[in-house]
C-alpha cells in the first residue's frame, strides 16, 4: 500500500538522520550540564576484549559522547518533567511532627553557641521552607519549592557519631606544630540542613549532631569554628546557591566573619568590597538531579572583591590524570584571584582561584604577622577572598591535591594559623583524614606514579 511505503520512507529518513548525526558529527567532549569530561574511546587490550569490557566501554562511549548531548539530556529531563504532576499550592503536606524524628522534637529556636568553647553548635529551626513542596529527583536529591525559587538539596547520609577523623586530623596538626601555629577546625554544613522541608526530613540526616561530634573530639588546643549558628541566623539571605551543591559567597562571608572572631584578627564588612553579579547561573544540581525545574530557576551568582586592600596571587598549578591523581607540578606563576565569568556561565563557582588543582598563595597589604593556611575542598574556595584584610598571607591547599611535605611548607612559609575548612561530606570521608595525615609525612613531589 502507498501509506506503508510512505511510512517506511519517513521512518527510514528519521533513523538515517539520527545515524548520520550520531556517527559522523563531532562528538561531545565535555558536558556543561553535568560539569564533567565525557567518556573517550576505550583503549584496546586483549584482556579487555576477552572480558567484554572493551565492547561495553565502546557502547558507553557512544552513548556518553553523543553530538548535542546536553541538548538531548535537556529534552530527556523535559520528558521526565512532563511525567509528573505540576505541583499545586494547596498540596497536602506531611509535617515532620507526624514522623518520629529527633529533629521534630528539638526544633525550637536558634540559640547562640557555647560562649567559651564554640564546641556545642546551637539548634536551627527552618521557618523558611518548612512547608514547601518537595520531591525526590535522581540520586536522592530533594527538589524544594517551585518556579524561580526552586532549590535542589543534596541529602546527607552521615551519622551522629561519624566524622571523628576530621577532628583527629586537626588534633594531629596541632600536636605536630605546637604552640607556634594556631589550628582551627571548621565544618561547613550544606544547604539541606537549612532548607529541607519538614515532609522531606526523613530523606536526609541531620548534620548538626555530626558537627557537634567533630567539635567534641577536638583537643583543647584546637579551636572550633562554629559557622552553623551564623549561617542559621542568616538563612533567609542567599547564603547557599539554589542550583548548585556549593554555598554562596555570602555564606562564606559570614563563615569568614565567625572565623576572624575566633582567630582574633581584623575583619571588614561588605562595604569594603565591590559586589559583582553573574546572572543566569545554573549550577551542578541540574546535572546531578536531572530535574528540569532546576534549569528553569537560574539565579544570580554574587561575589565580592575586596576593594581596600592590595593583594597579589601566586599559583602553583598541578596537572592531574583522568583519575584525578597529581602527575606534575608547575612553577609558581602570578595570576588573578577572582576570575570573571560571563553571564549564564555554568562554571561561575570557579570564580575563586579558577578551581582546586593548585596551591594558592595570596600576599596582602595587611601587616599583622599572621599567615593563614586554609586546608579545604571546593567549598573553602569562597573563603579566602574575605580574609585579605585579616592576614598578611593566605595560603590555600586542597585536601585532594598537595604534593609537598606539610611540615616543610608550614615552616618555609612561616604559617601562623591553619584552618581546616571542609564541607561536611568531605570532612566525613576517611580519605580526607588519610590525605591530611599523609601530607604531614609525605616527602616532597609526591606524584601519582610514586604514591
Amino acid at each position, binding site marked *: *500500500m502507498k501509506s*506503508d511505503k510512505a511510512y517506511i520512507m519517513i521512518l527510514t529518513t*528519521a*533513523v538515517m538522520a539520527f545515524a548520520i548525526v550520531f556517527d559522523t558529527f563531532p562528538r561531545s567532549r565535555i558536558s556543561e550540564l553535568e560539569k564533567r569530561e565525557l567518556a573517550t574511546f576505550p583503549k584496546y587490550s586483549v584482556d579487555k576484549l576477552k572480558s567484554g569490557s572493551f565492547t561495553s566501554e565502546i557502547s558507553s562511549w557512544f552513548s556518553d559522547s553523543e553530538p548535542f548531548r546536553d541538548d*538531548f539530556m535537556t529534552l530527556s529531563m523535559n520528558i521526565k518533567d512532563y511525567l*509528573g504532576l505540576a505541583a499545586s499550592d494547596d498540596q497536602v503536606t506531611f509535617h515532620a511532627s507526624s514522623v*518520629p524524628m529527633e529533629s521534630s522534637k528539638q526544633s525550637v529556636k536558634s540559640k547562640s553557641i557555647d560562649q567559651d568553647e564554640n564546641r556545642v553548635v546551637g539548634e536551627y529551626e527552618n521557618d523558611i521552607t518548612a512547608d514547601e513542596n518537595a520531591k525526590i529527583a535522581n540520586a536522592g536529591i530533594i527538589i524544594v519549592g517551585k518556579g524561580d525559587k526552586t532549590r535542589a538539596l543534596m541529602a546527607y547520609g552521615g551519622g551522629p557519631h561519624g566524622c571523628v577523623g576530621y577532628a583527629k586530623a586537626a588534633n594531629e596538626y596541632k600536636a605536630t606544630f605546637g604552640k607556634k601555629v594556631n589550628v582551627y577546625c571548621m565544618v561547613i554544613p550544606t544547604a539541606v540542613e537549612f532548607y529541607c522541608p519538614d515532609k522531606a526530613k*526523613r530523606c536526609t540526616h541531620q548534620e548538626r549532631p555530626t558537627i557537634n561530634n567533630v567539635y567534641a573530639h577536638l583537643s583543647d588546643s584546637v579551636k572550633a569554628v562554629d559557622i552553623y549558628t551564623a549561617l542559621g541566623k542568616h538563612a533567609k539571605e542567599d547564603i547557599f546557591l539554589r542550583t548548585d551543591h556549593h554555598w554562596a559567597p555570602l555564606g562564606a562571608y559570614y563563615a569568614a566573619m565567625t572565623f576572624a572572631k575566633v582567630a582574633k584578627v581584623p575583619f571588614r564588612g561588605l562595604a569594603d568590597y565591590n559586589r559583582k553579579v553573574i546572572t543566569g547561573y545554573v549550577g551542578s544540581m541540574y546535572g546531578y538531579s536531572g530535574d528540569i525545574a532546576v534549569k528553569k530557576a537560574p539565579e544570580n551568582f554574587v561575589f565580592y572583591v575586596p576593594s581596600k586592600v592590595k593583594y597579589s596571587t601566586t599559583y602553583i598549578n598541578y596537572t592531574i590524570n583522568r583519575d584525578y591523581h597529581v602527575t606534575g607540578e608547575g612553577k609558581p606563576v602570578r595570576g588573578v584571584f577572582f576570575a570573571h565569568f560571563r553571564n549564564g556561565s555554568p562554571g561561575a563557582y570557579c570564580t575563586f582561584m579558577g578551581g582546586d588543582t593548585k596551591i594558592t598563595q595570596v600576599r596582602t597589604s595587611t601587616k599583622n604577622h599572621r599567615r593563614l593556611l586554609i586546608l579545604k575542598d571546593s567549598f573553602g574556595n569562597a573563603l579566602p577572598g574575605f580574609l585579605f584584610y585579616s592576614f598578611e598571607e593566605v595560603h590555600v591547599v586542597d585536601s585532594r591535591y598537595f604534593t609537598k611535605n606539610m611540615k616543610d611548607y608550614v615552616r618555609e612559609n612561616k604559617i601562623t594559623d591553619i584552618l581546616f575548612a571542609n564541607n561536611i561530606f568531605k570532612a566525613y570521608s576517611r580519605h580526607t583524614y588519610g590525605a591530611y595525615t599523609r601530607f604531614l609525612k609525605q616527602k616532597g613531589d609526591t606524584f601519582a606514579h610514586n604514591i
Partner: protein
Amino acid sequence: MVFSDLFFLFVFIPAFALCYLLAAVIDRKFSSQDEARCFRAKNMVLVMFSLVFYAWGEPVYVFLMLASVFINYLVGLMINKSEGRNRRWALAAGLVINIAILGTFKYLGFFCGILADVGLTLAVPKIALPIGISFYTFQSISYLVDVYRKESPVQHRFVDLLLYISMFPQLIAGPIVRYGTVADEINDRHVSASDFAEGSYRFFIGLGKKVILANQLSEISDQFLVNGLGTLSTSGAWIGIIAFTLQIYFDFSGYSDMAIGMGRCLGFHFNENFRHPYCCDSITDFWRRWHISLGSFFRDYVYIPMGGNRRHQAVNIFVVWFLTGMWHGASWNFIIWGVYFGLIVMLEKYTILRIKDKIPSPVLHLYSLALVVIGWGIFYFDDFHSMQTFFNAFWGNAKVATDFVSESALLDNFWLWVAALLFCLPLRHVLSEFVERSCNERRVLKQSLFFAAHLSVSLVMLICSVALLVGATNNAFIYTRF
C-alpha cells in the same frame, strides 16, 4: 548488546541493513541460476551480524554457543538418519548434552552451594552465566524434539541451523521461537511493504515500552526496593512492587515486541509472547498470557509427554512449575515463585475455575492481580532477609505507613503511572476497532487515520527514546539475565 542501546540503533542496525541489502542484490543475481541460493547471502549476513551481536556482550561464550549449535546440528542429523530405539537414544543424548550445558553454566554453582550448606565440603565454582543461554538451549531442545517427532524437517546446513538459534532479534531474551515456526522461512521468506511497516511499528512500540516506561519505572522500584529497603514504609513497599510489576511487563514485552518487529522486517513470523497479562481473571489465565513461548514450551515438551491431565496431573503440574521457576534463575526465590504459581494453578482447577461465571469480573481481576504482585515480591528478592523486610513492610509491619518519598513517587510520576496502567490494557486493539467502526465504508479516511497514528507514534517513540538513552548506562533488559 541490547536493543535499547544507541550503538545498536545507530551503528549496528544501519550497518546490518546496508550489508543485508547488498546481500539481497547478490542473492537476486544468483537466484535465476539456482533457486536454492536465493537466501544464502542474506542468511550469511544475518548469521555474521548475529554472532557479532552476541560476541559484543559475550566475546568468549560465543564459542560455547557455536559449539552447542554444532552439537545439536550433528545430533539432529543422527536423529533424522535413525529409527526406533536408536532415534530415541540420539534424542536422549541430545537432550542430556543440552541440559548438561545449561546445568553447568547456570546451575552448577547453585547446586554446589546447596551441597556445601548441608555439610559437604565442596568448592563452589564461580561460573559467569552466558547471556541468553536459557533461551538458545530451549530452542535447541525444541529443534531436536521437533525433528524427532517428524514435525519439522532436519536442517542439513549448519549455517541455517545457526541462523535459527543465533538470530539476533530473538537471541538473548526470547521469545523462545520453536523450530517449526520458522523452519520454512529460513530459506523461503518474503517481505512486503506492509510486513516491513508493521515490523517497524512494532519495533518502535517495543522501544518506547522499554525506554519510556520500563526504564522510568525501574527508577521508582529501585528507589524503594533497593536503596530504600532499610527505611521502607508500607506505602513504599506497595508502590515499589507495583512499579516493578509494571516495569517487568514493559521491559519483557517491549523486548518481545522489538524481536517480533525485527523478525517481521526480515520476513520471519515469530509467535506472540504476551497477550495483556495484567487483564487476566485468574492465575491460570495469567500464564496463558505471560511469556507464552515458555509456557507452551513446558506444556508441549514436559507436561503433555509426562501424561498431561491424563495421569498423575498434580505431579506433572508441580514438575512444570518447579522447572518454570528454576528456568528463571539458580536461586531459591525463583523456585519458590514457580511452585507458588503451581499451587495456585492447581487450587484454581478445583475452585475458582469451576465457579468463575458466578464471580463478578472485577473481583476476579483484583484477586489475580494481587497474587501476581505478591509473586513479583518473591521474584524480586534473591536473598531471604531482604524478602522478609519487604513483606513485613508490605503487610503493614513497617515503622511508618506512608511517607513523603511514596507521595513524591506517585505525584511526580503521575502521568507515567497513568500511561503504564493504560498501556497494560488492550488499548491499541480497542482504538483500532473504534476507528474501524467509525469509518465504516470510508476506506481512505480509515487508512489516513491509521497512517497518521502509526507515523506519529513511531516518531514520538523514536525521538523520546533517543533523548532518554543519551548518557544512559544501566539499560539492560531484565530477561537477558535468565
